[in-house]
C-alpha cells in the first residue's frame, strides 16, 4: 500500500517540482565530471586500436548516445503506460518534453556512425537491419514530437502520443537483436551482460564513465525540462502563482 501512495505522490507535479530542484545541482555536477573525464580519457589517453588506429575513438561518443537513445524510448514507453492507465499528467510531461532529446541522441548516434563507417567500412550508409531500425527510431521520435504538438487538447494529445510510443516500442528489441538475427554490416555487441567485454579495461573504463555521465546529464536535463513543462501546464494553480510571485518573475 505504501508503494502505491509513493507512486501517486510521485505523480503530483508540485512534489516532483520540489524534488527536481534538489536533484538538479547533483545530477549536473557528477554528470559533467564523469562525462568529461570519460571523454578526455577516451579521446586522448586510451590506447589505439590495432586495426582501426584512432578512428575507433568515435565509440566514446557513438556508444553512449546510442545506448541512451534506446533507453530514453523505453522510459517514454513506461511513461506512456502510466499515461494510459493512471492518467497522470506528469508522465505525459516526460514523454513530450524528452522526445526531442531522444531524437537528438538518435541523430548523434547515426551521424557519428556514418562518420566512422566511411573510413572503416568504406561507406557512409548501408541499408542493413541495425542502421535502418535506428533510422526508424529517429522517425518515431519525430512522429511523437509532431503528433504531440498537432493536437491542442492536452488530454487527447497525451493519449494519442502514448499510443504511438507504445506501438513503436516493438522497434527497440529489433534494434538490439538486429545484429544477431540477421546478417548486418554493423558488428555485434561488444558489451553483453553475460560475457566479458571484447575490449581491454583501458578502453572500456573511459567508455563506461562517458555512458554513466551521459545518463546523469540526461537525468539533469529531464528535471530542468520537466520543471518548465510543469510550470507551463500548471500556470493556473495556486502553488505556481505563489512560486512565481516569490521569485519575482
Amino acid at each position, binding site marked *: 500500500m505504501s508503494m502505491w501512495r509513493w507512486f501517486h505522490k510521485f505523480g503530483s507535479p508540485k512534489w516532483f517540482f520540489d524534488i527536481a530542484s534538489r536533484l538538479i545541482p547533483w545530477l549536473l555536477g557528477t554528470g559533467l565530471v564523469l562525462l568529461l573525464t570519460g571523454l578526455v580519457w577516451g579521446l586522448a589517453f586510451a590506447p589505439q*586500436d*590495432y586495426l582501426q588506429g584512432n578512428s575507433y575513438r568515435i565509440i566514446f561518443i557513438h556508444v553512449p548516445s546510442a545506448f541512451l537513445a534506446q533507453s530514453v524510448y523505453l522510459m517514454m514507453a513506461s511513461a506512456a503506460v502510466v499515461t494510459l*492507465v493512471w492518467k497522470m499528467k506528469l508522465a505525459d510531461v516526460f514523454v513530450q518534453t524528452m522526445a526531442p532529446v531522444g531524437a537528438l541522441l538518435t541523430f548523434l548516434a547515426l551521424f557519428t556512425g556514418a562518420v566512422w563507417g566511411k573510413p*572503416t*567500412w*568504406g561507406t557512409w550508409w*548501408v541499408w542493413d537491419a541495425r542502421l535502418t531500425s535506428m533510422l526508424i527510431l529517429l522517425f518515431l521520435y519525430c512522429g511523437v514530437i509532431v503528433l504531440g504538438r498537432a493536437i491542442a487538447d492536452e488530454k487527447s494529445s497525451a493519449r494519442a502520443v502514448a499510443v504511438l510510443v507504445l506501438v513503436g*516500442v516493438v522497434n527497440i*528489441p529489433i534494434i538490439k537483436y538486429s545484429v544477431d538475427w540477421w546478417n548486418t554490416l554493423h558488428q555485434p555487441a561488444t558489451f553483453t551482460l553475460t560475457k566479458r567485454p*571484447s575490449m581491454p579495461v583501458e578502453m572500456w573504463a573511459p567508455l563506461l564513465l562517458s555512458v554513466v555521465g551521459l545518463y546523469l546529464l540526461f537525468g539533469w536535463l529531464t528535471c530542468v525540462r520537466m520543471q518548465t513543462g510543469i510550470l507551463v501546464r500548471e500556470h493556473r494553480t495556486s502553488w505556481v502563482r505563489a512560486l512565481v510571485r516569490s521569485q519575482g518573475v
Partner: protein
Amino acid sequence: MHPVRKKRLTIILFLVAGLGLAVGLATYAFRQNINLFYDPSQIASGEAPHDVRIRAGGMVEDGSVSRDEDSLLVRFRVTDFSSSVAMEYEGILPDLFAEGQGIVAMGRLRADGTFVADQVLAKHDENYMPPEVHEAIQRAEAKKAAAATTSSAGY
C-alpha cells in the same frame, strides 16, 4: 489496483504483445530480404540468384588475394569456413580489407560461380585491442605453431 486501471493495463499489455507478435511474424517472413548479404554456403547451395545485383559477405581467405600487375583488379576468395566463393573486384579497397578480415561485397554472380563485385565494404568485428596486445597474441601464436612443428619434426 483500481479495477478500471487493471482492465486498461491488461488491454495495453495484450495490444503490445499482439503487435509484437505481428511484427515478429512479418520480419520472420521477410528474413531473407532483411539479411544484408548472402554467405558463401547460401551461394554454393544455389540460394543466391545469378545476374542480379546482390550482396555477398564472409571472411577473406588466407593466402587467396592476388592483385593484377598493371590494373586495379583484385582476385580473392571469401569463405564462411564451410564453403567459399571466388570474387573479382576492380577499384580501391577500404583500409580494413585484409586476409582474414570480414567483408561485404555488392555485385553480380556470374554463371561460372565467380562473384564480380563493384563495391567492397569491410565488416568490422566486435573486438577491440591495443596494437601491443595484438602483437603479443600473434607472437604467442607463432611460438605455439613453431613448437608444434618442431615436436612433429621429432617423430
